[in-house]
């Protein structure tokens, strides 16, 4: 074709054309590339990139795909993971998701990923496609997804925009997960003003596979076919690259007209959970029939990501024919096809002899599948369109050798002042105000029942859910003919992390760990989802690096590895960043799910309530300081990971020997919150006797970590407490379960107030329905 400049403007921007028009202006800045990054691309290619190449590099070199600001810090996870910790790890950081061997020939893969910004633009679809994306990540490891979780952070519950954001996001998580047939076994909901303009939607998924059936994303074997299967490719989420079409094409001309006629669309994608459900079953069948060499999900960055990552992880060469990609819209330019974020698509590498079998399985499930290219040994990723070469790059430079930044780091100037401003000066309630405070605390948006949300999620489907809301960790058995189970909990208190990112991140790790051991499971591996502000702010980079060091050092003490994670930066409104929010997920294993520890009291008649762990006066950053005084300052509770470990041993022994009938860990809201939740969940009353020698307010509301409230059958009380004493586990008896009070069910906080459970239930459960409307309407007259 002619590379004559006058026509170049209206024809396909081919490699040849790019070489011939070195000086053509390109909108790389609009695509988010810095000047030096653009120069580096020119260096790599020895010419200017074509539009398609520019689209690929810009999206693959974005913070989201390249981790360019966090990479140098994430390396610390590798440095601190010992071989001992690695022993059960089959895949780690760098793969779609970490995989751990849990014995009996089973392996587990799990991950949490963020979908924050899209969920603010379009709450329902943003959250829905967030779930869809993480499920495909898990599927791409060769695993059957078996459960989902969601970690949600919103602005104040009563803020006007919460009426749009909260119901939309919750129904999006439910709408997608429920239709996929994946039980939702847990998550978090936090309300804080820092999230008002930037809610956090993190979604997690757990998958199980036979340990020897793992797949990875790599394209090896010259001559192997590349198959794109799932939904058609449309204009979803190409908002970004639409600048190309309009800026580069002159207006007339075939491709140009199509592109220019196009409205600028926001980067929203619409999810099709039905298509994903079918994609899951179809993919599991091709795995079972051993029809694939490598596989990759299409998420952000669509085909750009899938093709470059597959190629650079394999033998390094691939030829893709864009004309073979089934499209949903007319006149899509190569750049648009490569950047489309159309959902519910996967890319597989298949040996030629198995292509037919692969396509048959797809046909059975009515899943569109097309061979779009093949693996080569050229070491180049070559993409053609209408017979012309539009991309010719070394794949590693796109996928793995993007820019890496050591951003400036600086402890914020205000940090000392923040830590100096402790809660000591805050007026504390008098003894006779404590009863009201208990009711006020349990009714607060951050402590109230999550039922309004969890009632919109299916927790039963697939019939393997052994523990789910309300519980410290969700538990599913790995299959219906096994008692081997998986426990998972995710946690983070951004207020603690704000006060001290290193300790705060360890407290998040400690709580997730504690939540898992509280169910009788053994913590085995860790994932994280690091939500922070702009990396261009040295203070944010300080929070990030502190948090990463905290997590890694903590994991080393606990002896469990970080197997993967996700980083989401630029979470801020204007110049103000969100609270640093490193969500930590701890995966646990329980050899026999029948011995799981439940959170509700009243199962054995005659139970003693025992508080495990020391209680200190720790109310800085507490929910009490937040709710009653709107105060955030001082230092977070101290973290003691050795104490958490000991707690784990105690609870494991307690559950193995049937010495513990119920348990709930203490976190936000302290002992009062835990006691109320154990009573309401078990629908059984109790008498709470506050430990002597400690101020009742502190006893009830301090948020000291490494504490669990356990119910012990009276017959086991002596044996259990002797075991604690012997192992130097601090314990104190704090009351008894009182199932048969003739006057009804009460939580009797002795010397403070005898509160009817009905009153507590109204307070605890009434808050979210009052703000967001009832989730259940029984009469046909609304």
């Amino acid at each position, binding site marked *: 074709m002619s590379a004559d400049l006058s026509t170049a403007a209206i024809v396909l921007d081919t490699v040849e054309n790019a070489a011939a028009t070195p000086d053509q202006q390109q909108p790389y800045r609009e695509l988010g590339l810095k000047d030096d990054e653009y120069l580096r691309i020119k260096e790599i290619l020895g010419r200017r990139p074509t539009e398609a190449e520019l689209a690929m590099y810009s999206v693959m070199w974005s913070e989201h795909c390249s981790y360019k600001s966090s990479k140098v810090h994430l390396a610390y996870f590798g440095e601190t993971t010992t071989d001992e910790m690695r022993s059960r790890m089959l895949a780690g950081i760098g793969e779609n998701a970490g995989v751990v061997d849990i014995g009996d020939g089973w392996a587990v893969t799990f991950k949490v990923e963020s979908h924050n910004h899209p969920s603010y633009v379009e709450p329902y679809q943003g959250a829905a496609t967030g779930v869809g994306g993480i499920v495909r990540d898990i599927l791409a490891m060769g695993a059957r997804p078996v459960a989902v979780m969601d970690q949600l952070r919103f602005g104040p519950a009563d803020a006007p925009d919460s009426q749009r954001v909260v119901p939309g996001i919750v129904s999006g998580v439910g709408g997608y997960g429920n239709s996929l047939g994946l039980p939702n076994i847990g998550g978090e909901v936090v309300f804080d003003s820092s999230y008002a303009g930037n809610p956090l939607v993190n979604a997690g998924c757990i998958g199980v596979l036979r340990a020897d059936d793992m797949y990875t994303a790599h394209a090896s074997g010259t001559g192997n076919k590349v198959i794109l299967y799932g939904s058609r490719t449309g204009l979803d989420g190409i908002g970004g690259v639409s600048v190309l079409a309009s800026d580069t094409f002159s207006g007339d001309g075939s491709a140009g007209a199509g592109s220019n006629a196009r409205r600028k669309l926001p980067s929203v994608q619409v999810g099709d959970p039905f298509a994903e459900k079918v994609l899951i079953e179809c993919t599991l069948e091709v795995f079972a029939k051993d029809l694939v060499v490598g596989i990759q999900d299409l998420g952000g960055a669509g085909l750009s990501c899938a093709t470059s990552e597959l190629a650079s992880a394999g033998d390094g060469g691939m030829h893709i024919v864009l004309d073979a990609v089934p499209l949903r819209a007319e006149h899509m330019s190569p750049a648009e096809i490569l950047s489309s974020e159309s959902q519910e698509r996967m890319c597989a590498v298949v040996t030629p002899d198995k292509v037919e079998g692969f396509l048959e399985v797809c046909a059975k499930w009515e899943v569109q599948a097309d061979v779009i290219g093949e693996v080569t040994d050229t070491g180049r990723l070559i993409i053609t369109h209408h017979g012309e070469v539009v991309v010719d790059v070394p794949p590693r430079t796109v996928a793995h050798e993007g820019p890496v930044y050591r951003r400036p780091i600086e402890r914020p100037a205000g940090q000392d002042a923040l830590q100096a401003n402790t809660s000591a000066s805050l007026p504390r309630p008098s003894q006779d105000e404590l009863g009201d405070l208990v009711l006020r605390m349990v009714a607060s948006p951050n402590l109230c029942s999550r039922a309004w949300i969890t009632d919109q999620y299916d927790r039963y489907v*697939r019939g393997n859910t052994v523990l789910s809301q309300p519980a410290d960790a969700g538990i599913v058995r790995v299959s219906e003919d096994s008692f081997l189970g998986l426990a998972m909990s995710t946690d983070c208190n951004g207020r603690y992390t704000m006060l001290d990112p290193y300790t705060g991140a360890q407290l998040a790790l400690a709580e997730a760990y504690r939540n898992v051991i509280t169910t009788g499971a053994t913590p085995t591996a860790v994932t994280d989802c690091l939500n922070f502000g702009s990396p261009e702010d040295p203070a944010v980079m300080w929070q990030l690096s502190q948090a990463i060091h905290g997590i890694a050092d903590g994991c080393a003490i606990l002896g469990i590895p970080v197997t993967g994670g996700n980083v989401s930066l630029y979470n801020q409104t204007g110049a103000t960043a969100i609270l640093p929010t490193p969500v930590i997920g701890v995966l646990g294993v329980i050899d026999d799910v029948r011995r799981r520890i439940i959170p509700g009291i009243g199962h054995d008649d005659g139970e003693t309530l025992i508080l495990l762990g020391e209680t200190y006066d720790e109310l800085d950053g507490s929910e009490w300081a937040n709710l009653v005084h709107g105060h955030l300052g001082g230092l977070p509770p101290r973290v003691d990971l050795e104490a958490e470990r000991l707690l784990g041993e105690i609870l494991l022994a307690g559950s193995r020997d049937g010495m513990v009938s119920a348990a709930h860990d203490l976190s936000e809201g302290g002992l009062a919150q835990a006691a109320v939740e154990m009573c309401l969940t078990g629908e059984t009353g109790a008498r709470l006797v506050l430990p002597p020698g400690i101020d009742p307010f502190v006893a009830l509301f301090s948020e000291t970590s490494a504490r669990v409230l356990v119910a012990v059958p009276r017959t086991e009380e002596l044996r259990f407490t002797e075991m604690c004493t012997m192992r130097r586990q601090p314990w104190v008896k704090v009351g008894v379960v009182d199932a048969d009070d003739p006057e009804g069910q009460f939580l009797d906080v002795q010397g403070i107030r005898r509160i009817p459970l009905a009153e507590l239930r109204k307070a605890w459960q009434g808050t979210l329905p009052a703000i967001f409307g009832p989730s259940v309407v*029984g009469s*046909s007259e609304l």
Partner: protein
Amino acid sequence: MTARVGVITFPGTLDDVDAARAVRYSGVEAVPLWHADADLHGVDAVVVPGGFSYGDYLRAGAIAAQAPVMRAVIDAAKSGMPVLGICNGFQVLCEAGLLPGALVRNAGLKFVCRDQWLRAENTTSAWTSRYESGAEILIPLKNAEGRYVAPEAVLDELEGEGRVLFRYIGSATADTTLAPANPNGAQRDIAGICSADGRIAGLMPHPEHAIDPLTGPTDDGLGFFFSVVDFLEGVKVS
């Protein structure tokens, strides 16, 4: 030979594994049936399980009702084969015209997942004979389009012929202002109904998720599956 109970899988069906497990718990063989296959492979009864067949797009159950396997189910049902539709399966049976009425969007406009109390009203049908009349059972409910509606005349007929299988009732401890007994505004609190001959049954709650206290709130749901086994064995000897 023991009875064989078919469990249909449409694209988007989710609770087929659970229905098959429940069938096995009742001691008989579960036979997978594929939506595109018009052959019922000689099963003695059919369960149309829950889920989101075809994504519940258009209307829950509407597209699945057109599937080849449903033509076979309709013929078999007309000649007396017991058929149970659970949740999405109930919606499919209504859309296919095997049961009267329709299931529409919950009055609260939200998906509802909760443990639901039900009262047994008809304990003579092929699927409910194991329950005592008036028995109160607790089984999971989870759907977004579970509100049963039908013309008044049809409702009267259902009541008159004793074809209401189960009704929604409240729980002792729940705060009814927060958790009403009726989860979705179903007319006359109807949770499930059956055909005039008591062989075709549909209900929104999920008995197959209440077969083992380890994974469900109770094992109250087993009665459905034991009932149909009794029915089939009775039929066989006679």
